[in-house]
């Protein structure tokens, strides 16, 4: 509770730069500094954002995108975390798998989308798979590096008390690696969003990408498009906070294995 009160106390400071940004935006557009302006004034965009919050269609599209994000994330975590542990822990496995992983990582994901459509049709599956791939690399690489960079002092201590390989992974390596894995998950969200919007703009059923492109192409209103972009940023901030909160909860573990 005290933490929440502390955070509320610093809220004005945290919001100050955002306020200044909005103010500069408003003044620049209204004063004609950006003429002919492709950007509507901040006040109109914020007004549209408020209207958007009460539109059920916006929430339906948000729900569709969120479902895709969560499915892709879940698959990415299920695959990347165990794989990252195996590759990070076993130098032999790393020797065999690293070249393959590094090569695959360089393939631009969007170029794979038509291939995915060929293989999996035009439904949700190719969409979710491409999101999974987008999230996977960040999580995989952060898991590998966190396992490889585990404090040797900690490993030596655990070994000296007779810890088996399995206990070492479960009780020493996993708790130490959790913070980096979470960082990987947070960074992965940006990659996910990039791919998600592109895929949805290509014309799958529903989602943020569709509403962005419809407002962009049909010229209905740029104001609404910017409002949608801002709403996506707000959702991103919320997702980030959820991860930070989860990480804090889980990283109580970390304290338990601090060595003195």
């Amino acid at each position: 509770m005290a933490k929440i009160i502390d955070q509320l106390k610093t809220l004005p400071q945290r919001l100050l730069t955002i306020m200044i940004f909005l103010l500069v935006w408003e003044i620049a557009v209204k004063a004609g500094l950006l003429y002919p302006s492709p950007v509507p004034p901040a006040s109109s965009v914020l007004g549209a954002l408020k209207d958007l919050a009460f539109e059920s269609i916006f929430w339906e599209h948000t729900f569709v995108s969120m479902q895709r994000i969560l499915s892709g994330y879940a698959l990415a975590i299920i695959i990347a975390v165990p794989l990252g542990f195996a590759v990070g822990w076993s130098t032999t496995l790393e020797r065999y798998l690293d070249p393959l992983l590094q090569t695959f990582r360089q393939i631009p994901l969007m170029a794979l989308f038509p291939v995915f459509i060929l293989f999996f049709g035009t439904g949700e599956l190719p969409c979710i798979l491409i999101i999974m791939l987008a999230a996977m690399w960040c999580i995989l690489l952060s898991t590998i590096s966190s396992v490889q960079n585990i404090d040797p002092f900690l490993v030596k201590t655990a070994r000296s008390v007779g810890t088996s390989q399995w206990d070492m992974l479960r009780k020493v390596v996993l708790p130490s690696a959790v913070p980096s894995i979470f960082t990987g998950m947070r960074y992965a969200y940006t990659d996910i969003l990039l791919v998600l919007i592109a895929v949805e703009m290509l014309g799958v059923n529903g989602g943020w990408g569709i509403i962005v492109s419809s407002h962009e192409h049909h010229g209905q209103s740029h104001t609404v498009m910017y409002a949608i972009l801002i709403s996506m940023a707000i959702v991103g901030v919320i997702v980030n906070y959820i991860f930070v909160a989860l990480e804090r909860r889980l990283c109580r573990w970390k304290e338990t294995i601090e060595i003195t």
Partner: protein
Amino acid sequence: MDRILETESVTKTYRLGKIDVPVLHGIDLSVKQGEFAAIMGPSGSGKSTLLNIIGCLDRPTSGRVLIDCIDTSTLSDNELAVIRGRKIGFVFQTFNLVARLSAQRNVEMPMIYQDVPRNARVKRARELLTLFGLSDRMDHKPPEMSGGQRQRVALARALANDPALILADEPTGNLDSKTGKEILRILEDLNERGRTILIVTHDHEIAGKCDRIIRLKDGVIET
């Protein structure tokens, strides 16, 4: 007397990028049961590397290490963990205790990995801590204790599974001379009761109390 430890032509080479850095060049060493031996040598002579290999914390590049007549070079990582847990007790210069666990829980740790039942391990941990004069510190956590107390907890942990061999890497290196002497007295006492102790040290006073001094220089034993 039986030999508790033997090394045969042990070498260790670390690979730093593309360069091979040889640390140990063919170490032949044997330690008898009940011996109190010191390994001495300048920094970088390979003392700690040798101790880590003897303690199965690291594998030699070539050669064999026999603990209690068991050839450790043929064992899997999990079998090595069992050897470490049952036959060897480690004491480090830096204590290496788990900060958030009480002294008693720290001492219980090696017994947990050897599946000692809870009641038995609590009893053993409390006995050992009492033996080392820490009966009033059992529930204290390492950060609340002095260096000497921490090292005594570490010694109790090293003895938890009643190992035949104690390996101590500069156990008094982080302690003042008075506390260092206390720890040395405990080690001498343990040796008198039949425990084999191998200690890496820079301290001539400590080495002077040992049955034998093994001098290491540039990865070879000086004769």
